[in-house]
């Protein structure tokens, strides 16, 4: 009998410029792959959720507190305003219903269209790194679920956020309105152009990965401002780039190796 040699697929696949997608996740500092530990965590999580069904909001508050202590402070985030914001924003209201139970887990979650709500630590890290102040005006590119914008809105005066995918924009806008975040403006547009009429901005957070830094965003960044941007194709990000504008000069720093492991419960097609 004859079997076609399978390793020979390359003649059908001439992807010399192969692109594969990752995103970010900072597992490496605390996640040591202890499987039993993970199962225990899951069981504790489920137990906590069940026992707090009657007092739901308080239950989530407990989970948030645990998230901040074990995932965020433990990894070195210290900014008090960032920690306070993460303690108060109800992350479970920003994830699809079926993922609510996992909302405070140490991982990103799918929100459809190949997009995700970032891992809590990454949200905290990106928030802290731009050094947000009360009087800041911040631009966010890539609203997604609206969670990052909500965290920022707890700290600064005004947040402007742009989402390119219409469905995500509609959902995020409604969610943020329902939760009374009245200092957040949401727009459905191409983030490449930024939001010129509202600029310049004290800081810019790009949550959608890019292969280049859009020139209009640099223009809309105030002198002395900071921009944080994950560099990489949308799902393959491996580093966060900090862009600083000082006296007209632009400097960058490749901050950290980050990786995004999507946590899913069911396969979705396109959405």
């Amino acid at each position, binding site marked *: *009998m004859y079997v076609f040699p399978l390793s020979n*697929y390359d003649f*059908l*696949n001439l*992807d010399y410029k*192969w692109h594969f997608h990752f995103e970010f996740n900072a597992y490496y500092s605390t996640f040591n792959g202890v499987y039993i530990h993970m199962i225990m965590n899951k069981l504790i999580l489920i137990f906590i959720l069940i026992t707090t069904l009657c007092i739901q909001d308080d239950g989530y508050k407990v989970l948030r507190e645990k998230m901040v202590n074990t995932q965020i402070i433990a990894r070195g985030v210290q900014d008090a305003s960032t920690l306070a914001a993460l303690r108060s924003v109800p992350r479970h209201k920003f994830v699809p219903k079926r993922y609510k139970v996992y909302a405070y887990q140490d991982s990103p979650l799918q929100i459809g269209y190949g997009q995700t709500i970032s891992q809590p630590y990454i949200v905290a890290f990106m928030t802290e790194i731009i050094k947000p102040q009360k009087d800041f005006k911040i631009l966010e590119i890539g609203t997604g679920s609206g969670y990052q914008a909500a965290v920022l809105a707890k700290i600064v005066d005004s947040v402007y956020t742009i989402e390119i995918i219409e469905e995500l924009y509609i959902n995020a806008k409604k969610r943020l309105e329902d939760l009374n975040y009245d200092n957040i403006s949401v727009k459905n547009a191409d983030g490449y152009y930024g939001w010129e009429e509202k600029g310049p901005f004290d800081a810019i957070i790009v949550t959608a990965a890019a292969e280049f830094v859009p020139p209009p965003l640099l223009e809309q960044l105030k002198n002395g401002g900071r921009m944080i941007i994950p*560099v990489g*194709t949308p*799902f393959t990000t491996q580093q966060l780039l900090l862009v600083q504008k000082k006296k007209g000069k632009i400097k960058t720093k490749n901050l950290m190796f980050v990786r995004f492991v999507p946590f899913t419960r*069911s396969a979705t097609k396109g959405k």
Partner: protein
Amino acid sequence: MFGRQKIDFFHIRLILALAVLSAAIISYEIQLIHFFTIVQWHHFAFMVISIAMLGFGASGTIISIFRKWLLERKDTLLPFLMISSGLLMTVVIRLSRSDFFIFDSYTLFVDRSQFSRLLGTYFLFFLPFFSGALAIGLIFVKKVSKIGTYYFSDLVGAGMGGILTIFLFWKFTPQEIPSIIAFLPIFAGVVIIRKKARLVLISFTILCLSVVVYQLNRPFDLAPSQFKGVSYAMNLPDAKINHEISSPYGLLQVVSSPVLRYAPGLSLTYTEVVPPSSVIFNNGDWYASIPPWSKKDTTHLLNFTTMALPYALGPQNSVLLFNSGAGLEISQALFNGAQQITAIEPNEIVISLLKNDYATITDSLFFHPNVQVHALESRTFLNQTHKKYDLIQLPLLGTFGGTVGLNALQEENLLTEEAFTEMWYKLNQNGLIAISSWIDYPSKISLKNAATIASSLESSKIIDPLSHIAAIRSWGTITFIVKRSSLNKTDIENIKIFCDKYNFDPILLPEIKTVDRVQYNTMEDGNFFFNLEGMFSAQRKKIINTYDFNIHPATDNKPYFYQFLRWKKFPNLIKSLGQKSTAYIELGYFIVVVTFIQVIILALLFIILPLFRLGWKGGNKTWVALYFCALGFGYIFLEIVFIKYFILYLGHPIYSVATVISVMLISSGLGSYYSSRLKAQRKTLLKITGIIAGFILAYSFFIGDFLSSTVGLNIEFKIGISCLLIALPAFFMGMPFPIGLKIVYKMKKSNVPWAWGINGCVSVISTSLAAIIALELGFMVVMLFASAAYTIAFLSNYILIRKY
């Protein structure tokens, strides 16, 4: 039973049916690779299809256990199994796209629910192969006395199946192909329907045909994973697919959207608008960006990237561009005044698109009088050309943000030490080689590039390599240039000016200071500069040997540039990255190993299970196991190495593979046919296996040099040489299986299906094993292993009872 009057006629029909069925199975296997590459990634094709192909091994197990029962019903069963195989071919692929079975390979290591779906997918695709293999196995078991002829039919059919698939890929869509192929086994089944149960079987055939026709008219869902590049692109506003072409090169889609822009590693000093550009996706992955052209263009986007470094040193008149894609680098070279641009692009569909549908958008770039485009493998062109160039530019390497190891199994013949040396000698006096990559962290690609350059310069007896090299980095990319003559003061000054202008930092430059390296861009990897410089010092070997990843320069013998995994360091990686993350860091190699382990476990099960029925002793089982294992390993090992060698030699991957497979299988088929004239005895086996082992051993040492010395010949000569080189050993390699099977039959006929099953299982194991050996030890060792396998087959004959 086969009646005397009809024996000859039925014999011919059976031979025909067997050939058609074999053709269909091989064709279906190849199209499955195509299918999985589109909807997932080809690594998962490797995993799923390996398991599915174990259907051959499983058929041997089933026939061993139920031999008598199956043979008694063979008249009905044979057509039924063939027709069912056709039906299953078309049905399972649609079922695999249903919500119940669909799995996402990307989330496999983080979402355990995906495993049950994967198991379901394994099971689905196992069915058509199992059904077809059961039919083939039954024929072999029943017709051992004429096995030479039937095996000939099987091999020739398989060879034709390979060619047929290429034809199908040109003519039909990926959704249509499984159903088209499904007609073949149904036809094969119908050809051998006999009087007994004719009505039932014809009714079944009509039912199956109806299903196949229905499937043809209702294409299944071919939506790729949501994590594939094309899925992202299609989520963008007003995104649309302008062209979709299916061919053996893959499923090519051209997507446009007003917000789709490409400017890899663009300098932060760029202030103009980045124009939208259409993007070519191949099998759902980004392939090339079509450079838009406008009369208003006053600059070129790539001039704002580190890739423009060669042009900062002065005009480059003759430029050689490898893997030029849709021509972005061609337009850059033209913009910078190049007079003779030679662009090499292996995908002829891309060239055709740019010459026809996208000629206007790109201002007829591919028709420009200064541009010559060749549809060829880049390395093959490099081997053949006698011209010298001012600039040889390689494509941007690495997935943006760093490779994830998915290319680990991809041979990169252009990124080997030998390829660099060849490029070096194709440079004019002041010529340059330019190679750029995305910055990855932990650093792998850039360090391997440096190691390859250093090693190549060393072999070219360059005493002071650092005087020939410059490297610069932006926030996202690193570009190396290697100059044939030493960099002079003007060059160094020009590089510094270029870096200052675009906010880039020089990282390798004669007399550079540490502070110059981090003027605009800093990074967290504190050891990077030490390791980079170390590549050009006596420390190189030490750094390479102690680094966490494999940054040994790739060679022609092991052209796996993107294979970074070091098993020694694997525990360290798990410790620092976590289990889940590690799986994603070097995914490609990881999947091959996972596949190998899965296949080994299942294969052992399929091989051992029949022994509970057949008994552990009797019929010289040790010899049967040794001999048929050795044949399975030897054949596939050699075939895989042949494919690797001849793709490089002939230059056209698709036709090279078609040539190797067809010539090898047809020659083996002829060998099998010829073996009918030989006596089925130990002496014959000793002679044949001895000849094969000797042939392969000689090839191991001489074929590489022989092919290198004749690579410059005309393609007609090269095809002739290839056919001869392949056909010679392949002819003999077709003999040991049928002769061996006859001896098994003489010793104990119930062992025949067991031997067939062993051969089937081992053929699948050897595919993964060959990949692992090639990655770790190189092609030459795979060939030596092939020779060793036939030597074992040879030696095993000494434990064969002398009377046979």
